[in-house]
Structure formats: structure tokens, C-alpha cells
């Protein structure tokens, strides 16, 4: 691999198992998941629906407790890390509060964390610039397009400078063109902030384009079938998607997905 020196590990999962008990039997959502994520990495999770991608992110964020195994985040438990406000979580839907302006929405976590007014204003302005939403501060969510709302929700996750960014299909509901733009933007953001990012997607090109590491998963029970360290450089123009390296990684991801399926 090209990026040989393995950076300091931020998230480390060992033998993580999670079984949901529901009325009609139990669902084995994760089985013996082992994964190390280094500081500043961009890790994509890809796999068919129901393979446990969301569940894994939720386990990392302490929104779900594994039935077996351990996850450590900077040497802490996920819940300790949550209390230390280590996570910026972006959900599939923007989830902006409709009664707050865009600026108010982005300021909300800052308010909760006790930043003073001047600091809130400064940070809101800064992250809105970062996601190219300057000037929309006083607008309400319904006055923005879906893509702009999603950018606002990313800005909200960035505002309090969490160390780890968790993104669950943030662009799933957007069309290809908007998605390309946001992907470029996200990559730029990531380069600028250097945040460790966990990103769930269904799109192979998106995963390959964005990631330093691609985690391929397969369902029933949800498990990791392949982990690919990307040899692509960190500087990535959109055209890189036509390069042979890109196509080769995409091919390997597709093979991994197919293999996961064939086992059934």
C-alpha cells in the first residue's frame, strides 16, 4: 500500500456482535466485526441494504450497545466519547428543526454545549462559509433545497469541531449531479479539517472517490467481507473516476459485494 505509515488509531472495534431482539425473532445485525480506523481517515461503508452499516455507526456513536465485543474511541468507550462530544452525526435525512432558521439550527449544538454568543456567531458564519451556504443564515429549512438542507446538516455537525464525523448516507436522496458537487465539496472539507470520517453509502463510485479506506459488508448476519485501502492520492479531481486505478478499486468493491451475495 502507498500510504504505508499507519496513523494513530482512533476507533478500534474488536469482535463486535449485535443482535436485535424483536417480536418476531432476533436479527443478527453485526457479527464479529473487527476494524481499526486511523486518525484523519475517510472510511466508507458499503453493502446491501440491511447489512448493518447504520447499526455499526450507531454502535460507534453509543446510540446502540453491542451484545458482545468492544469498541474503543481514543481509548474511551463510545459512551464516554459521546459525553466528550467527539461525534458529529449526519443522518440520511437532514433532520433540521423546522422552527429554527438555518443559522439557528447550526447554532443549536453550540448552544447545548455552552458556547457563548460571540463564539456561536463566529462558528456559524465559519461553517456556513465552509459548506457554501453564506447568506442563508436567516432562512428556514423549508426555504432551502434538499441538497442545501443536507449541507446545512453537515455544517451543524462540523460547527462544534467534533473529532469524528459520522455520516449515514447523507446524499442518498439527492440526484447524481448535486451528489457529485457535494462529494467534491465534502472531499475539500475533509482535506481542510482533517476529521476522521465514517461514511455510509450505496454507491460504489462515491465510496471509491471519497475514501482512504473502503469497508465492504454483507448481510445476514452483517459482517465485514473486505477492507480496501485506497491507493488514490488525497488530491482528487472528479476526473480521477476515469483513471485505471479508480476503475480497479471499483471493480474490487463490486467483486466483494458480489461475493457477499453469492454465499447465500
Amino acid at each position, binding site marked *: 500500500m502507498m500510504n504505508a505509515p499507519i496513523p494513530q488509531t482512533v476507533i478500534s472495534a474488536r469482535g463486535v456482535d449485535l443482535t436485535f431482539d424483536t417480536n418476531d425473532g432476533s436479527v443478527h445485525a453485526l457479527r464479529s466485526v473487527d476494524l481499526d480506523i486511523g486518525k484523519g481517515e475517510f472510511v466508507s461503508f458499503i453493502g446491501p441494504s440491511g447489512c448493518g452499516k447504520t447499526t455499526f455507526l450507531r454502535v460507534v*456513536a*453509543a*446510540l446502540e450497545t453491542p451484545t458482545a465485543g468492544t469498541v474503543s474511541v481514543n481509548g474511551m468507550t463510545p459512551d464516554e466519547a*459521546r*459525553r466528550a*462530544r467527539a*461525534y*458529529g*452525526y449526519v*443522518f440520511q*435525512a437532514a*433532520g433540521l*428543526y*423546522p*422552527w*429554527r*432558521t438555518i443559522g439557528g439550527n447550526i447554532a*443549536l*449544538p453550540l*448552544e*447545548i*454545549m455552552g458556547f457563548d454568543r460571540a463564539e456561536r456567531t463566529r462558528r456559524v458564519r465559519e461553517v456556513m462559509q465552509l459548506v457554501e451556504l453564506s447568506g442563508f443564515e436567516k432562512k*428556514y*429549512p*423549508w426555504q432551502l433545497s434538499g441538497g442545501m438542507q443536507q449541507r446545512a446538516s453537515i455544517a451543524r455537525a462540523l460547527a*462544534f469541531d467534533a473529532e469524528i464525523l459520522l455520516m449515514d448516507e447523507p446524499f442518498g436522496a439527492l440526484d447524481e449531479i448535486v451528489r457529485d458537487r457535494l462529494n467534491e465539496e465534502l472531499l475539500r472539507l475533509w482535506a481542510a479539517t482533517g476529521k476522521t470520517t465514517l461514511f455510509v453509502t450505496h454507491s460504489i463510485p462515491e465510496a471509491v472517490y471519497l475514501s482512504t479506506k473502503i469497508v465492504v459488508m454483507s448481510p445476514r448476519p452483517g459482517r465485514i467481507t473486505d477492507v480496501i485501502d485506497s491507493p488514490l492520492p488525497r488530491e482528487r479531481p472528479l476526473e480521477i473516476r476515469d483513471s485505471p486505478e479508480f476503475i480497479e478499486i471499483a471493480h474490487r468493491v463490486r467483486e466483494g459485494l458480489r461475493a457477499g451475495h453469492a454465499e447465500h
Partner: protein
Amino acid sequence: MSRYGPLLLLVAALFALWYAAAVPMNIREALSAAERNGVVVEPATAIERRDANALGLVAANLAQIPAAWAQDRPRLPAPHQIVGELWQSVVMEEIEGQRGLLKSGSLSNRGLLLHVWITLSATALGFVIGTVAGVLLAVGIVHSRTMERSVMPWAIVSQTVPIVALAPMIVVVLYSVGLQGLLPKAIISAYLSFFPVVVGMVKGLRAPDAMQTDLMRTWDASGWQVLTRLRLPASMPYLFASLKIAVAAALVGAIVGELPVQGGGLGARMLAGSYYGQTAQIWAALLLAAALAAGLVAAIGGAQRLALRRMGGAA
């Protein structure tokens, strides 16, 4: 015009029906009065008329129909009589009455405005108490399993007891501990109005979806922050829907609370009217109470629009 057309038609039909109904209702009194004045009516004596069919009496004495709309103490006053009574007791009483606004500087207790004011104060106080209690109970219920199990069944039972039976007891009990006047009525109002607020607010406080509460969790928000920054704002549409029901219930409570005490108010006016056979007075008080209810609900609606506009207009 086309918007109000059907409404006007409906109102006109109601008035026609009312006038029509007033004739057989009042024909006996009209015939008795005419007989006293020496007019020949058919049949001629009250004893003969007692067992006769009212519609038959109308048919036999068509000339007395206008008199049926002009009785002093009609069983069913005609609309213009009620309007006359309203004019008299709302406007003329204050202008011409010895103790009216113009001559004494304060509202006459023979007019209706003072009684509207008395009822309105009890309603307002009861509504505020009921709303505050309802919101507090809902917050408790949403935050504590124990409270949900213990409070909710009692809240429901409390509303199955007929208020007409309960109101005099509340008044008597409170009187015995030295409370009288506004407060007992307000408490009856509150008793009726807290319930819709509890039900609506429990639903409203639980309205935020899992994603919104999960976000709060990732930010490590305290219970208080989740309540004030997420649950309460999310519950606003539910709150206002409940408040509209609650304010109407509060008015009913105040009126019922005025029945056992002769301290004035629209309820007392209705009761007095029925003691003295002043049906027009009952109806006038009734209409004012209805108008008051409509006004209160409209005021809540206005507050709702204001609040929701301040909250982004699309909430």
C-alpha cells in the same frame, strides 16, 4: 359573495325555522292574552284550549300569529325579541340605567356586560391554571413511567364525573375553607380545561422522531435542554389545538360554577332568567356565552398564527 352565500342561506333558513317554531310554542299565551283583551279567540276559554293541539290552535287563530312573536314571557322568544333584549341589556342599560356606565361610571349589574366580565375573569383564570397544570402534568408523564401509570388513569376518571354534580361540591368545600368569589369558579374551569391540554401535550412532547432525539443524544444534551429545545417547540401545534378545546371547556366550567352561587356572571343570569320566566334573558345570556366562546377560540387561533409565524411559518 359566493363564499358567504351558502352561509347566509343557512342562517336565513335557521331564522325561518325559529320563527315558525315560535308560533305553536307561544300560541297558548298569545290566545290567553288576546282573550283578556276582549278579542274573540277559538276555542274561547283557556280550559278548552288546554288539551287542544298547538298546531290546531294556530290554524284556528291565524290572526294571532304576530302576537305569538311578541309575548312578554314567551316559551320560545322570537329572534328579534332576543336581539331587543341584548340591545336593552348590553347597550341601553349602560346608557340610560341609573347604575349604568354613563351615570355611575361602573357597569350596571342589571346589564349583561358586567356578567360577561365576571364570567370572563373566572374563565381566564381557570384557563391559565388548567393550562399550566396540564403542561406540567404532560411533562411529568413524558419523563416518568411512574407518573404516566399513576396520573393518566386519574386524569381520565376525573373527566367522567359529571361537572354539574361536582361543581356545587367544589364550591361548598372551598367555601368552608374560606375561599369564595372568583377562585372556586376558576378551579372548576381549570378542572375541565387541564385535560385536553394533558392529552394534547403528551402527544406533542412525544412528536419528535427518533432521529431528532438521537441528534440531541450525540450532542450529550441534558433532559432540560431536550425539553426546551426540542420537545416543547415540537409540541406547539398540538398545544394550540388543545388550547382551543380547553378555553371552550373553561368557559363551560365558569358558567356551571356560577349556577350554585348567586355572585353574578352569565351562569347566574341564565339561572335568574329561568326563575322568573325571562326566557329572552336566558337566550340573550346564552348567545353572549356562545359569542364569548367563539371570540376566545378565535383569540387562541390568532395567538397560534403569531407563534407559528415566529417559528418559521411552516412548522
